[in-house]
């Protein structure tokens, strides 16, 4: 049983990504108590998996470091990792919530010395790198992980490997008897900042994701480019590890499409242009082709588009690519479609294809009271008549980091209003 001091004067923030952490901090720094829960073993969510942000091409870790510092010194925020919301009942100002804590099998005595990982033999798909590489089943999620603490994958519990890890730990930090537990709390307001999942690209059968090794998604590209990614930051073809010379980006892959996601995810144009800069920086001779329907670079971000467009090795071709096929011998991909401008058929060959796939929001999934409404696409809807549960970030609409932070700051105030009303 975990003791908390949460009561109806506190705010529960579900999701410890950039939106959740922002909402939690902004409310706490105004003097309100917050409980922040995150299902992963670390905070930072999906932005921690990015290499750079557009348009400044700066590292997410920079902003996260300040966020975590603010978190560290603020006694009003209590956060739990490996935590999920499993039940909500009640009404605005007075909710009863149940939080489930999944076992990390590593307690607060962990010093990150790394001995357990050294002795562990089992390897698992690295979740942080979308399974593009393997890590030991006793692992630190990523080097900037906050909180800095190892995790044991549940798959080794009960095995000899787990025992080895436990024996190797000098600090008694490995607790194989940890069990799933739940605790109940009363809160006054809830902020749903549980983020999104990348659209499952294998559903876009004609693009061959999952079949052709060298067709990857935008989120996988971020990992390839990251120094702490599966290839140490070298953007290479998954099939043979070779350098890329010719890369294609397919915009709106499974987006703006009745058969997949009808809506636009807002950031994929900018993300692909950003990826183009990653590639161009690493390989001055590599060519990049971006197949698009509309280039969506709003307000000052237009400058970013202008900059990328000016690069003579980056081409923009307006086309909705019809299908992709693979040359089994080389692993190269042939991209076919109509060039909307010229009316000609495109048939071009590339080393690697990046699908700019969209974002699918996480819903409260039966956990919430019936008050919570979603739009046609699963995005949570703010209903002024039904206060108390507020969406923040990509659970409301797909968008960029600055907007998520803005949004989460607003959600913090809405949550405070729910409490202040009492």
């Amino acid at each position, binding site marked *: 049983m975990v003791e908390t001091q949460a009561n109806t004067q506190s705010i529960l923030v579900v999701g410890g990504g950039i939106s959740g952490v922002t909402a939690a901090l902004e409310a706490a720094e*105004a003097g309100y108590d917050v409980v922040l829960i995150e299902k992963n073993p670390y905070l930072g969510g999906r932005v921690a998996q990015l290499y750079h942000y557009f348009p400044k091409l700066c590292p997410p870790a*920079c902003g996260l470091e*300040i966020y975590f510092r603010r978190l560290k010194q603020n006694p009003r925020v209590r956060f739990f990792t490996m935590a999920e919301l499993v039940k909500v009942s009640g009404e605005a100002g007075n909710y009863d919530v149940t939080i489930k804590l999944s076992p990390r099998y590593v307690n607060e005595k962990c010093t990150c010395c790394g001995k357990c990982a050294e002795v562990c033999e089992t390897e698992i798909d690295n979740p942080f790198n979308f399974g593009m590489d393997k890590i030991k089943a006793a692992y630190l999620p990523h080097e900037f992980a906050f909180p800095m603490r190892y995790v044991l994958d549940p798959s080794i519990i009960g095995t000899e490997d787990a025992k080895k890890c436990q024996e190797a730990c000098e600090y008694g930090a490995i607790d194989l008897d940890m069990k799933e537990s739940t605790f109940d709390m009363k809160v006054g307001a809830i902020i749903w900042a549980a983020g999104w999942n990348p659209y499952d690209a294998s559903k876009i059968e004609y693009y061959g994701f999952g079949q052709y090794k060298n067709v990857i998604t935008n989120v996988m590209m971020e990992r390839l480019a990251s120094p702490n990614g599966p290839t140490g930051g070298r953007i290479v073809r998954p099939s043979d590890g070779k350098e890329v010379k010719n890369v294609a980006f397919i915009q709106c892959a499974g987006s703006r499409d009745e058969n997949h996601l009808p809506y636009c995810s807002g950031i994929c144009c900018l993300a692909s242009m950003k990826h183009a800069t990653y590639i161009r920086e690493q390989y001055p001779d590599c060519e990049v082709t971006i197949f698009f329907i509309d280039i969506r670079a*709003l307000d000052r*971000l237009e400058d970013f588009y202008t900059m990328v467009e000016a690069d003579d090795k980056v081409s923009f071709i307006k086309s909705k690519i019809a299908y992709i096929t693979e040359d089994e011998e080389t692993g190269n991909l042939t991209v076919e479609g109509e060039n909307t401008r010229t009316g000609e058929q495109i048939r071009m060959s590339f080393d690697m294809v990046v699908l700019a796939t969209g974002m699918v929001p996480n819903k409260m999934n039966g956990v919430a009271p019936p008050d919570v409404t979603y*739009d046609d696409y699963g995005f949570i809807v703010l209903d002024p008549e039904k206060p108390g549960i507020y969406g923040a970030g990509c659970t409301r609409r*797909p968008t960029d980091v600055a907007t998520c932070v803005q*949004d989460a700051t607003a959600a*913090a*105030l809405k949550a405070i209003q729910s409490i202040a009303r009492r």
Partner: protein
Amino acid sequence: MEKKTAVYICTGCGIGDALDVGKLLEIATDDYSIPICKEHPFLCGPEGVEVIKKDIQEEGINTIIIAACSPRVNYDVFNFGADKIVERVNLREQVVWMQPPGEEDTQMLAEDNLRMGCSKANDTELPEPFKPEEEISKDILVVGGGLAGLTAALETAKAGYKAVLVEKEDRLGGFLTKMKKLVTMPYKELSDTGLEDLVKAVEDNPNIKVYTSSTVEKISGAPGLFSVEIKGNGNSATEKVGAIVQATGWVPYDANKLDHLGYGKFKDVVTNVEMEEMAAAGKITRPSDGKDVKNVLFVQCAGSRDPEHLPYCSSVCCLVSLKQAAYIKEQNPEAVNYILYKDMRTLGQAEDFYKKAQLDGNVFVRGSVANVGEEGGKLFVEADDELLGERIRIEDLDLVVLAVGMVPSTQPDEIPRIPAPEGAEGADEEGMIEVTPDSGFYATKALGLEYRQGPELPTLKYGFPDSHFICFPYETRRTGIYTAGCVRRPMETAKVIDDATGAAMKAIQCTEATSVGMAVHPRSGDMSYPEFNMQRCTQCKRCTEECPFGAINEDEKANPLPNPTRCRRCGVCMGACPERIISFKNYSVPMIGNMIKAIEVPEEDEEKPRIVALVCENDAYAALDMAGIRRMQISPYVRFIPVRCLGSVNLVWIADALSRGIDGILLMGCRYGDDYQCHFIKGSELANTRLTKVSETLDRLALESDRVKFVEVGITDYEKIPKIIEEFMETIEEVGPNPYKGW
């Protein structure tokens, strides 16, 4: 506070294996007379912490030096209350994880780190929160009564705080008053503007005081202590507020500059704003003869995404034109709308509205406009159609709507000029120079701040008073003053509402933090603030000019007048002051100077150079930790000293270091320039500028300027650290040992 100090050295995580901990304890006991010095094999564990807590309780220890892991970890474990001083000495990440165990140099590094920690703890005092004489206000001033301003005021009131709303027009609503309908979530159809309800909610709210036909004349003071003079209706009023939200909105781009698109030439060429006004007033008709409208053409990006006019995109014009096309269809289902566009920018769920517009039978032409002309009383538009690949001509048009962009209200028509500072380039015959957008003198009047650095918020490119940071979109360069709505970025109404709510949150938060003496972002919670020993001030004005946040005013004699609640506690002023009169209770020039002096500098013949690296604690320090976590090995001769910002580096530290025989000084900090990363805006830039002045001094002392270097180290640059150190060590080897050693 009378200090009772204790040192605790953790021997876990390899520290005990790599170092002679006994020797370290001796140094603490003998050299620093610390009464209690202990070691423990697992200090962050419950038993270890218990040892410390026992000493606090039984021995009255109130200053705790922990020589163990990095201060970035176990912050919660080693937290003994706000009334204790805790100093962390990094022996793990930055010593034993980056150095070979058992070596003499590793030991010397650890000993110096401990010495510096003991020295620092000695010079640290507990901060006392700043309590102004005047009472702190938690009221919020909202400047501008459009959608953003109304929302900010209302959301403030709903949270239980008071708002003062000032609007220059005689009615509230801003551009919302000119709108017929909105397109907002869920983007399926047109919505009512909600203006009436919103205005009523604001006017009826007892927590909101509304001034219409009024402007802000001037604002003096600081967060928590702003005094606002409001003039209007022949009256003058003063309000005391704690924080400010500027929501002064936008004006349409001047379409007179678009005469090549027919504006001003043909009556039936109107802007999107004029179109909206017509629709809101009743029927949309041809301005030339009042006749019915059958065929309309919308020219998107009219004067936008155009280096000759507005280079940026105004975000909303696509959606607005689709909305107006729907007005036309509503009025006359037989009407034909042509939308001539470059890219259709209907993001997120707004894609649904684009779909609806297509299903409504509107004609979308992707291309660029070449010419707008008139023939037989009707208009025609020639365009280069991208899809057809040829020039087309769309005729028989009753109306051509130019979708013009938004210009923030802050953008001046004519860029103001101020007296050019000495030596500045580009001054005209009268000695005046144009101000740059980041100057407090650039923006058009909205706040009238009585700040030495100018009356308005600094702006970014294109005149938007926005934050440069992606992660911190509300952080303007003036503490306690936030911007919301289209004045900060062109945005659609749904986003404006969120934006204004967020700005209200930040404003409230600022007043709450200020009321307990705490700083806001990025040093949230910091209770220290700079104190000025005015006796030695020489009125050089460096602090007042260099403060990135305009926190320091000046009197007529050029004496600095600090405003602690405007301060972000970065210490740039401390670094600027040549007389060293500025200090914080827990961060001062002598403190770092003494740390440098605590370093043991071996004699020249020992051939063990010594480098001092002043490290920005926001990014570079974390990068060093990361290098340690990755067990990257570096030279054992570098002594890392974290600083709040490189801008707080006072040049005397360099002089101190060199006069002690330190061979080289590295400054490790964030990127500066157009895409700066420095959390304090100009810190690393200032450090660099100051370094150039140091070169002269160095040359005079017959010391090579190569000995002092700035290197950019971003938080993810840990891979580069070994190389950076190695290269610097090579430079030092070339120039040879500091001739001042042993003096």
